[in-house]
């Protein structure tokens, strides 16, 4: 499974890319593989505030509906509208075109509590 080195990971298989006070969130390669073909993404609302580990949106595969949890707290500033027409981007490019939303970080200190790539790899190896 692909676990890029420049990202932070939640135990619930979301990733966070931090750029100063802004974070971009998506699901990991492992998560998209486990979900199987993603056929629908219920995006969060821009302007909504979310808490770390709070359910923020739903990703549906043919198999099942899965909750997505925000890795960190903040205010949602953008969502990836492309996923409405092309939900399979989560499968084909989970770390790029398949990003789900961006948020303004409420407390950058939360980022340090997420898994490092090595920790996340260890989690996957143990799973």
């Amino acid at each position, binding site marked *: 499974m692909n676990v890029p080195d420049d990202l932070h990971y939640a135990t619930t298989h979301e990733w966070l890319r931090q750029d100063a006070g802004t974070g971009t969130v998506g699901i990991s390669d492992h998560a998209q593989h486990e979900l199987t073909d993603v056929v*629908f993404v219920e995006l969060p609302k821009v302007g909504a505030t979310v808490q770390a580990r709070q359910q923020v949106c739903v990703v549906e595969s*043919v198999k099942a*509906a899965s909750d997505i949890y925000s890795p960190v707290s903040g205010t949602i500033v953008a969502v990836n509208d492309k996923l409405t027409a092309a939900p399979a981007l989560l499968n084909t490019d989970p770390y790029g075109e398949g990003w789900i939303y961006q948020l303004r970080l409420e407390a950058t200190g939360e980022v340090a509590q997420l898994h490092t790539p090595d920790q996340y790899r260890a989690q996957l190896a143990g799973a």
Partner: protein
Amino acid sequence: MVDFGGWSMPVQYSGIIDEHHAVRGGLGIFDISHMGQFFVTGEAACAWLNRLLTNNVERLGIGECQYTFLLNERGGVIDDLIVYRIAEERWLLVVNAAKIDENFAWMQARLQGGIDFMDASDEHAGFAVQGPRSAQLFDAFFGGQHRQPARNEILRIDIDGEPYFIARTGYTGEDGFEVFCVAGRAVRAWRDILSRGAAFGIKPCGLGARDTLRLEMCYPLNGSDLSPETTPLEAGLSIFVDLNKPDFIGRAALVAQKAEGVKRRLVPFKMAAPSPPPRAHYGVFKDGVQIAETTSGSLSPSLQTGIGLAYVPTALARAQETIEIDIRGRRFPATIEKKPLRRATA
């Protein structure tokens, strides 16, 4: 991998949608070793099976099969299964994995003299080869040495001294074969079929595609669409119930239900606007009132829209009736459709 009736089984190999299209457009193979096999042998077997099952086994010639139900006294479904007449006085029943023990105990408790009744599930493996190219693979596999079974026919073909039962049946709506062999031959048979099928684009398929394919055809899944609380009449499957044959378990309840009028019907529906895929146990609404709960639901890879099944009041059980499906608190429009939701590949 998921647990399915006590078996660890793959949901998918290459992907549910990919596997689904392989079966609709070409060829797929499913491991159905989880399914149960019972053998019933004896002079009295025919009458005994007719007393336990809803369809009329007397109609079967040697090598023929039929879809049928095992009912409780209330007319509720214990299991749906296929019964094959493999010899004049020998029958093969293929039952659902999760129901093997329950079915066997139910039947064993009602066993009569002169019948040999055996659960051979553990000793048998099974595969379903499904898709419009199945017949081509059959001929390539056997090099024209064996004739193909006809629709709903089962043949015994011996390979290296071991018997293989090959039936022209399936759960996808496509042409295809179901093969049962001794478990020790399973891995080799699976590899042989995959290797000979490569020229026809065969793909291994998991439980995910098995579900989307059967749902498009509106084939019920026991435990979801059928249960001890639902009857075959409510499920719209009365053609597999022969009320004119001698008495069978559940018959009195079905006759009474028919006389009173069947109050609800299992119908397929299709989402009428973009929506998340419906799932089992979602609320079904009509004019703001909940009238049912879905029993199955999924995205249909062929139709590219959400589809499902639900038991709705008989008055609403007609094609083009509009309903709403509650998906996480939001209601999305859907229409009731005729069976099947998708026709088999011509």
